[in-house]
Every structure is written in structure tokens, then in C-alpha cells.
């Protein structure tokens, strides 16, 4: 194990490089093609050559085109829905995590099991009955329908609970003796200590909402409320001729999710892994 053997090492790196190439080429091709003139996007695709991967001319025309269309509206919808979900979700879920981590109360175990069950049951499971509920409440085709169902999340409650459980109880007792209310303790002591957990939870909620497709497709039908994923999918099926706009909008949507993920990748992987382990 300690002696580096050249052949297996070479083989291992060759395999990893090949896999990375297969995994990354579609994303690379999508993004690089979004900068090609619209009539050149497929010109070098049908027959493979260096120009399939390296564009001959670069242009921002496709981006200029989507920003003059209804795409900015979808971009706003997605960003607004995701930001509102994160803002509400950080408070709602951290409060619940705080209660589970700090207090002892009857019903604690059954309620916590309910929280665990809710995150093991993927959201897609209940999309259709949730639509029935929203239709009864007359909430379909509203921002509330896109935001509210995603605010409380079992996984996020669980992440906050795991982090809060590691804070020593003595500091709470000391604060109680000094006359602080539990609300003040939560708001002024616990939350300010939880920067990395808040960052991870926010990122997870943001990407989850940014990527959401099935629920927004079902919950909204008007074009004014279409989020980015739904708008792009509708363009794909309706007007396939406009490839330049499709490539530019898809690239934008990929980058908005990928960039923050990679900035916070270490936190994310660590939290998911330790959360899944405990």
C-alpha cells in the first residue's frame, strides 16, 4: 500500500480522467455553445471535429436575445421564490431544531420521528394531492403556492438540531439566570453561533427551489409565474427552432446552481455526510 506502484496508479488516473471527461463534456458543450452564433450551434455537432468542442466565433447575441424576452421575468420568479423560501425557512426550521435540541417535552420522540419521516418521503410523492389541496384553497397560480410548501423541511430541521445539540447547555442556564427569555437566547445567542449551518441550510433550500420542476409545473399555469426550469422546458417543447435562446437560458440556469454549490462544497458535503451518518 505504501509503495506506489506505477501501473495501477496510471490506470486509476486514466479511468478517473475518462469518467470526468464523460461527465463534464455535456455541461461544457452546453455552455460553450451558448456563446456561438445561433446558426453555428449544430454546425459542427453532426460530424465530430475539434470545432465541435472549440467554437470558431464567440458572441453574446444569444444572451442579449434572452434578456430581451420573457426570460428575465422567469429569472425574477425563481430568485424571488428561492430567496423567500430561504428567508422564511432559516427561521422556521432553526426554531424547530432549537426546540428539539434544547427542551425536554412530552411528544418529543413522536414529533421527531414525524420530522424524520417527512424528510425520507421525497416531496414528489405528494405533489398531486398537494395540488388538490391548493386548488381547494384557491392558491394555485400564486407565489404562495410555490414558496410555502417548501419552507418547513425535515432535513433542514434535522441539520439545525444536530448543530444545536452540540452547544453546551450551561450557557443557556447562565443566560436564564441573567433573566434572558428563550426567544432572546435563540435570537441573540444560538443563531449568531450557527453561521456555517445557516449557510449550508440556505444553500440547500436555495438549490432545491432553484432546481424544482414538478411542483412549479403543476402548481402554476400562467406564463407570468413560470420559474426558470418550467420556462426552459416549455420553450424546449414549444419552439425548438430558437436554439440560441435555449442554450443561453439553460446555461444561465446551470451556472446559478453550480457556482454557489462549488463555493460552499466543503460545508455541504461535510454537513450532508455527518447528517446522514448520525
Amino acid at each position, binding site marked *: 500500500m505504501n509503495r506506489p506502484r506505477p501501473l495501477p496508479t496510471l490506470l486509476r488516473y486514466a479511468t478517473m480522467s475518462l469518467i*470526468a471527461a464523460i461527465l463534464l463534456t455535456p455541461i461544457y458543450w452546453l455552455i460553450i455553445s451558448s456563446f456561438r452564433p445561433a446558426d453555428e450551434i449544430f454546425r459542427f455537432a453532426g460530424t465530430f471535429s475539434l470545432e*465541435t468542442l472549440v467554437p470558431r466565433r464567440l458572441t453574446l447575441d444569444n444572451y442579449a436575445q434572452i434578456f430581451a424576452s420573457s426570460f428575465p421575468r422567469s429569472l425574477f420568479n425563481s430568485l424571488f421564490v428561492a430567496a423567500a423560501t430561504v428567508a422564511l425557512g432559516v427561521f422556521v426550521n432553526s426554531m424547530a431544531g432549537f426546540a428539539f435540541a434544547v427542551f425536554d417535552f412530552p411528544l418529543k420522540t413522536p414529533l421527531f420521528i414525524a420530522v424524520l419521516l417527512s424528510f425520507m418521503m421525497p416531496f414528489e410523492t405528494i405533489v398531486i394531492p398537494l395540488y*388538490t*389541496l391548493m386548488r381547494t384553497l384557491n392558491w394555485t397560480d400564486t407565489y404562495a403556492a410555490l414558496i410555502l410548501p417548501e419552507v418547513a423541511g425535515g432535513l433542514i430541521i434535522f441539520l439545525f438540531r444536530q448543530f444545536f445539540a452540540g452547544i453546551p447547555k450551561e450557557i*443557556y442556564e447562565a443566560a*436564564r439566570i441573567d433573566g434572558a427569555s428563550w426567544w432572546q437566547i435563540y435570537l441573540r445567542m444560538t443563531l449568531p453561533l450557527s453561521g456555517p449551518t445557516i449557510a449550508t441550510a440556505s444553500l440547500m433550500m436555495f438549490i432545491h427551489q432553484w432546481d424544482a420542476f*414538478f411542483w412549479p409545473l403543476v402548481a402554476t399555469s400562467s406564463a407570468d409565474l413560470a420559474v426558470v426550469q418550467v420556462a426552459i422546458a416549455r420553450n424546449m417543447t414549444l419552439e425548438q427552432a430558437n436554439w440560441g435562446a435555449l442554450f443561453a437560458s439553460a446555461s444561465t440556469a446551470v451556472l446559478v446552481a453550480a457556482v454557489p454549490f462549488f463555493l460552499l462544497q466543503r460545508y455541504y458535503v461535510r454537513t450532508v455526510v455527518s447528517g446522514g451518518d448520525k
Partner: protein
Amino acid sequence: MLREKAWIPYAFLAPALLGLLLFRFAPILIALGGSLFSQSIRGDTLFVGLKNYHELFEDPAFWAVIRTTLVFNLIINPFQILCALGLALLARRPTRFVEIFRASFLLPMTVSIALTSIIWSIMLDPTLGPVNGFLRWIGAPAQPFFRSADQALGTLIMVATWKGAGYWMVFLLAGLLAIPEQLNESAAIDGATAWQRFRYVTLPLMKRPLAFVLVADTAANFLLFAPVYIVTNGGPAGATHLLMFEAYQSAFAYLNHGRSLAISSIILAIVIAIALMELRLFRQPEEAER
């Protein structure tokens, strides 16, 4: 743990519990309840008991959907886990540049399922797509992929694996990194081959992360919807008509809400059974410590 006025913990829990109750647990009851009703042509709702389920089980089209969904899951789950395990084993040792490879294995998981569908339907387009351009370049015949009833389901599996393998790798990699390096080294000193070390040292210690990934991956794949909706529309000839798409079609194409909620209830029963298995996996370590 601190004991306080009885209502305080509930006050902190209230907003989250209200959200979960309304948007996670109430829909379960709505699915079960609504599946017992049917809407007449005039639009009024009638209690029909188990009629919706009865009609489903009498319907050969529904059994074809069940069959496709089962075949899809029986292939994709082991396949994705093998790919994820392979990636985790490759990226296990922290040698030079491994961080870069780990990151590139993860990149596809950041592409949403809707965009994954769109990117690959372009990549694999029989006439325009660069994949067939590449195949012709290496001298292989061009393939129809999503356009052929024989290849569509397999193509769907490959595309879903492109996105999923890196995600499940994270959990398996964490499991691998938790295995003490000395175990492998002492086995190597005792003359165990690489395969023997994997089979008798690594694999037994990976049981829990593997079981977790199997259960969670199965739940996720049972609910696959976006690629079917965006790319194949269930076809060609029903080859990719999965259960979730049938639930969607029942509600929004056939406008048969009772049928759609009956399918949702069946999906719920499957996923809750999977979640309960998952819950057991989470609790096992505590029991083992006692």
C-alpha cells in the same frame, strides 16, 4: 435537558409543525380520501369506495406502467450504486489531484433534473446531437437513443445515472474514509490481494452506507418524472411510461382525479414502506451501542 414552562417548546415548534402538517401530512390523507371519490360528467363528486383501485387493477395499461417502473428500478438502482461505489473507490485515496476529480464527479448533481433532461435530449438527438457525431467519427453506427422503443428506457437509465452517481458517491466516499487505513494495510502485509481486501475488509464495513444509499436511491428513482415529461412523453410505445408520469397524466391529461389520487396513494404506500426501512437503518447504530 432543560425543563421549562410546558408551552415554550411547542411555541418554537409551531410554525414548522404547521408547515409539515399542512404540506406534507395532510396531502397523504387527501390522496387516500380523494382516491375513494370520483367526479361525474356534470362535475359533482361521488363516493365510489374502492372503484378507482378496482379500475386500475383491471386496466392492462396500468399493469404495463407498473411493469416498466419495476424493470426501470430493478436495473437503475443496482447500476447507480455500482457506479457510485466505483467512483468512491477511485476517489478514495487522497493522492495528487484527487480533489479535482471528486469535484468533477459531483458537478452533474448540481444540474437540475429538468436541465439534465434538456441537455441530454439535445446531446442524444439522432440528427443534430453531438453524441451521434462522435459515434460516426469513431466508425460506430448512429443510434436512435430516446427515439427507439428498444433503447429509450436504457438511455433514461444512463442519463439519470449521469446526474445521480456523483450524489450517491458522496455517502459511499464518507463510509470508505471512515474505515481505518491500518485495517487495509495490515491485510496487505498479510498478503491479501486487492480483491480480497475489498471483499473481506472494505465491503463488510460498507454495509450500512450501502444499505442507506440503496433505500434512498430507490425512493428517488421511483418518483422520476421530469425526463419522461420533457423528453419522451412516456414513449416510444410506452417504453418510458413510469408510474409518476401516469399519475400526472391521469390528473392533467385524462382529467381523472380519482384515478390520479389512487395512483398517488399507491406511490405513497411504496415510498412510506421505503422510508420506514430507512428509519430502521438510522436507528440501528444506537441499538448496537447498547
